[in-house]
């Protein structure tokens, strides 16, 4: 089955760009500005948005490649993308090592003898670096790219099946998700534990995104526009909002019946809890309801900064991780007052936008470059998948 629509849906770029901003804000520890991010008001967070849209665009881009060049060539492109992401991850790890080696050498405080034990792994850099290269050792906030690498690595066969038998592929993905929950499957991490984002569980959202891109969204449109579904989604968001408020206002907790708290807790991020999926889907339903595909404002300058970030997601994501390290460093070295936090957050987003625009410009120049390459007929999802 071929992709149904060929024109890019700017909503995807917009919301992926916004998700990248939110991930950046959430990744700066103790950042007051992260108070605005969606994770504080419900069960899901920007990761769900990012993974879903990445699945959607991956299917869109590589599905078209599969049409034009066949399975082998498009698979090779997917794996090349995997390799790029791996390199980006290792690059970020190097920056991380530099940061913590600095802290290990310069910081001593009797209050934190326990916490400083965290730096013990610097005593055996041989093992640590090797485990990082194997994607088993993943520092804080560096879990998304390894997840993405695994999701893309097995995407060629998934895409092949999705194009032949979309429903079968979706059911297979959901079955795999259920089996993962049943048997506690996950990939081991180092020094112990498992991956923070379990790829066996998170694949479902990625495959669901891909399924939507390959015509699933159109099949769902009757449901998406139904007032009943929209009402249910709104109620679920309100419920999640109330529960989230009870985390910050313990006095509200007395209004949460024990049976409800017994059912919902713990809300498992590692294995993509059903509550989180439902929360993301509800957000998506409400968003699609209010933001139609041909909404004129999508082409306005107001949304351009987020859209350009969403169009160059890998570059923007990596830069965001680096900027969140840098931002935290400024909090501890210079000041962690609220104006500083706001300034660092805004500056970070501005840098992400500027870098994305630079990449965009560079791609345009390259396309025009010396070779006889014809310009692409429609703007592609540059860096899309």
């Amino acid at each position, binding site marked *: 089955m071929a992709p149904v629509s060929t024109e890019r849906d700017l909503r995807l770029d917009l919301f992926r760009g916004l998700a990248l901003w939110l991930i950046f804000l959430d990744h700066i*520890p*103790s950042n*007051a500005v*992260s*108070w605005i991010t969606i994770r*504080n008001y419900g069960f899901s967070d920007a990761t769900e948005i990012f993974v879903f849209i990445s699945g959607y665009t991956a299917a869109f881009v590589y599905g078209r490649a599969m049409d034009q060049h066949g399975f082998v060539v498009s698979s090779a492109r997917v794996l090349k993308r995997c390799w790029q992401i791996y390199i980006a991850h290792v690059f970020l790890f190097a920056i991380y090592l530099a*940061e*913590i080696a600095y*802290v290990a050498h*310069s*910081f*001593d*405080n*009797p*209050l*934190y*003898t*326990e*916490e*400083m*034990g*965290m*730096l013990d792994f610097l005593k055996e850099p041989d093992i640590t670096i090797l485990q990082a290269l194997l994607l088993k050792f993943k*520092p*804080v*906030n560096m879990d998304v790219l390894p997840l993405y690498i695994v999701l893309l690595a097995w995407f060629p066969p998934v895409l092949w099946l999705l194009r032949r038998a979309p429903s079968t592929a979706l059911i297979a993905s959901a079955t795999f998700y259920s089996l993962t929950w049943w048997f506690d499957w996950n990939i081991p*991490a180092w*020094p*112990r*534990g*498992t991956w*923070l984002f379990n790829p066996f569980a998170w694949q479902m959202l990625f495959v669901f995104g891909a399924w939507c891109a390959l015509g699933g969204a159109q099949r769902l449109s009757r449901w998406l526009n139904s007032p009943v579904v929209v009402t249910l989604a709104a109620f679920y968001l309100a419920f999640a909002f109330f529960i989230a408020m*009870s*985390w*910050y*206002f*313990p*006095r509200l*907790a*007395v209004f*949460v019946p*024990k049976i409800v*708290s*017994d059912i919902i*807790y*713990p*809300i*498992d*991020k*590692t294995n993509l809890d059903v509550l989180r999926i439902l929360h993301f889907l509800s957000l998506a339903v409400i968003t699609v309801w209010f933001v139609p595909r041909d909404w004129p404002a999508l082409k306005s300058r107001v949304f351009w900064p987020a859209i350009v970030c969403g169009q160059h997601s890998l570059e923007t994501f990596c830069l965001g991780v680096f900027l*969140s*390290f840098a931002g*935290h460093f400024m*909090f*501890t070295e210079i000041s*962690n*007052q*609220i104006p500083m936090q706001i300034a660092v957050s805004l500056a970070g987003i501005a840098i992400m936008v500027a870098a994305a625009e630079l990449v965009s410009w560079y791609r345009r120049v390259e396309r025009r470059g010396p070779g006889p390459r014809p310009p692409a007929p429609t703007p592609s999802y540059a860096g899309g998948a």
Partner: protein
Amino acid sequence: MKKRLAALLAWPLLAGPAMAAAPAECLVAQQQVEQAFPLPHVAAALTAKKLDVLVVGAGSSVLPGPNGGKAAYPARLQKALEELLPGVAVKVATDVNPRRTAAEMVKAIAKPLSEIRPAMLVWQTGTVDAMQSVDQDQFAQALDQGINIAHSAGADVVLVNAQYSPRTESMIALSTYIDIMRWVALQHEVPLFDRFEIMKLWADLGTFDLTGATNKLDIAARVHNCIGWLLADLVNEAAKQGRPQNEAVKPGAGN
């Protein structure tokens, strides 16, 4: 930040007694201490004028050096409780060893509980689990088990979460473990002493400099002193709720 908003909104609800003896710097964060759940065993112990407390914790429940024990929050808790509860024989025992996960503490918890028979267990945990990326389910289960063991031994439980440590924040992923502790506390209806947010407030307001590199104990001792005082305040307030004969405090009436 969100906690700070919570604190702001909760401020008028808190008609807690002025802790005259506590240093003013501690009180900066007093509104962060919210006790949503009563402590009936503590209330009974107060009626009997004898309160035994057991503190179980890891490395952040103690300070290094020869005076570390006296300066650490368990000893300060005893001091504060003695001042807050005149006429009550207060004794705080500790079972504190660095680098222990919640599950490791659960294994060791039964013995001191049966020996001391405390009315209250103060259980500090979460940091080591986060450092070792202990499986989240296992962490939640260990908390469940520990709370159940303490309850069946006739002790109320107060959970104490990780410290706020600005320098290592980007290296230790505390937030998941802090969330789990919050959820388990809500499920079991036990108070959570939110040490993380309290210390974060002190750091944000400049009450204590938590980023400074030093090998002196002074700030660390002041921080622990305040934690002892605020814990004592939480115990005192929650125990009031647990006293059924106390008509002045209506449970569930917002305070």
